[in-house]
């Protein structure tokens, strides 16, 4: 069971080593990186490559650690007791399995994705320490211990909005997806658009890296934006010479909506275009 990237995903050597270490030793892999560099997609691709089912747990600011284990719906039980429902006598009827429980008891070894862990409260990772370390937890309501049949492969992504506690980090492997260089980017494009015109890609990448280098951008376009933009260019059948003969007075690249995601950035480009139009006297 070795991860070598897939038909849809270009994995760099360091990423492969990190993934293989995590899958082999069954410790969680923490993935960080700029938004849009393929952190979430990674888990899906690992699942595909290993032929394992993917269990996704998307974290929000309101997510609590115990929701990943189980939830006891006391309110529903109270209500049922009022209505005289027979289900009320068995507490198990009111325990809802969380994603971790699901992953621990899955019939086939799953890949568990804990997406954007930094969105949750600062204590969230600490609350999951034991559960992820021992891959077991205790259900107070039914007095049973849920233990993983086989330690699942856990992928955790973070956008760095909050620092994660040391004790949590010690239990993980860590990988930082750095922004792909040109060669890697070319490989990624080849995977997504086989047979795309070489010239078009090369021109588009010139423009793309130029846009990324413009100082002061609020949100730098990343891989996923480049792919979207290429898709648009292809769809619109943009003639090559539009990209090629770029007029400095038109600083905004064609179909810029896919690359620039907020109005301040677009204004910045308009200002640049305006400066370029001004005579240099």
């Amino acid at each position, binding site marked *: 069971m070795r991860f070598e990237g897939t038909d849809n995903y270009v994995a760099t*050597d*360091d990423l492969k080593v*990190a993934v293989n*270490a995590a899958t082999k030793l069954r410790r969680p892999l923490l993935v960080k990186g700029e938004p849009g560099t393929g952190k979430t997609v990674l888990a899906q691709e690992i699942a595909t490559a290993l032929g394992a089912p993917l269990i996704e747990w998307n974290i929000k600011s309101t997510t609590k650690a115990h929701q990943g284990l189980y939830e006891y719906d006391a*309110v529903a039980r109270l209500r049922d007791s009022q209505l005289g429902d027979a289900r009320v006598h068995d507490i198990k009827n009111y325990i809802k399995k969380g994603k971790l429980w699901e992953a621990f008891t899955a019939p086939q070894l799953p890949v568990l994705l804990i997406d954007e862990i930094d969105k949750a409260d600062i204590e969230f990772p600490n609350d999951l320490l034991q559960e992820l370390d021992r891959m077991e937890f205790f259900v107070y309501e039914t007095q049973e211990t849920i233990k993983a049949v086989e330690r699942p492969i856990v992928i955790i992504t973070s956008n760095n909005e*909050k620092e994660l506690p040391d004790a949590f980090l*010690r239990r993980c492997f860590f990988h930082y997806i750095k922004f792909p260089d040109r060669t890697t980017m070319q490989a990624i494009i080849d995977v997504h658009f086989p047979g795309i015109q070489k010239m078009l890609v090369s021109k588009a990448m010139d423009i793309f890296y130029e846009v990324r280098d413009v100082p002061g951008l609020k949100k730098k376009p990343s891989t996923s934006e480049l792919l979207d933009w290429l898709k648009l260019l292809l769809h619109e059948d943009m003639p090559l010479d539009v990209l090629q003969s770029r007029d400095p007075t038109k600083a905004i690249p064609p179909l810029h909506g896919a690359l620039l995601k907020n109005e301040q950035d677009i204004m910045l480009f308009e200002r640049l275009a305006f400066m370029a139009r001004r005579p240099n006297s």
Partner: protein
Amino acid sequence: MFFSFMEELRSAGISASLKEHLALLAALDADVIGQSPEEFYYLARTTLVKDEALLDRFDQVFGKVFKGIFTEYGQNPVDVPADWLKAIAEKYLSPEEMAKIEKMGSWDELMETLKKRLEEQEKRHQGGNKWVGTGGTSPYGNSGYHPEGVRIGGESKHKRAVKVWDKREFQNLDHTKELGTRNIKIAMRRLRRFARDGAVEELDIEGTINGTARQGWLDIKMRPERRNAIKVLLMLDVGGSMDPFIKLCEELFSAATSEFKNLEFFYFHNCPYEGVWKDNKRRFSERTQMWDVLHKFPHDYKVVMVGDASMSPYEITHPGGSVEHFNEESGAVWMHRITSTYPATVWLNPVPEKQWGYSQSTKIIKELVNDRMYPLTLEGLDDAMRELSRKHGH
């Protein structure tokens, strides 16, 4: 194994623990990687470093510790001990393959030929990047040995691997941040103000009992959870006379970022004027207009300004007094705008309180913030937080 490596890492400030060291050994034991130094580097990195800001430091330590070993290994292939090669070959070659190789001659002969071939290649290729051609028929090429073995054939990975950490791609992620900010964080807790807002998701027991008693049937009441609703705007003086206090400010900054959910920060130099910035490297190209700041963040933000307030008095009192640019309006005007927009404003001064009296500008600033200047010590911070958490009227 790797004790000196671990020691070097720890002395470089990468707090790799025994747990991680054992994980690395376990991974090596489980044959997660092949035997190329490049892969070892990647594995060590993924195991021992947990913060992208430390990646650059890791690269440096790795380069330092393994330099002698890998370059020697990469550049003088002739020195590779024969029994080592043999051991690897035995590990990865099937008996049939071994027999095939035996046909070509005994092990010693084989090694002798290999050595010779390597020497020849060494002479031809100055850089020694490719010792043995990648052609398919030679047993010394890529195809002769298991792909997981020492890659004698094919493209030499060793050279490239050395480059990987020598490239130091993560350099600008390194920000030396200080640990041990717990005291500061605790002082800042004074600022916590819990409020219930957002989604209703907590069972309000009191309300439920009340409602049930009133209605005669079970009346469930829910309420939003308590959250820290405090909002903080941090403005930091950078450069020049602030240099001796960098460490202190970093501690404050790192504690503040982890303590407050709604924290915004800006930098200024000496005295705030019409523009502030968020990135010190781009302080001239990426400025935020002070007016935008004043308009964007509502009055209930708590403003914490950090600076030594040591400058020429003209920098505060006169238009055009700034040392960096021509300011059309004086710093005092801007200070006044800040304090009138944000009733809860304090100034933290890293200079010891005894010395404030000797500096004209400190006195002026202190007046401008209505005497709410506090020394940047734990007690000062505590007082400042107390001041900020008072109710402020408009």
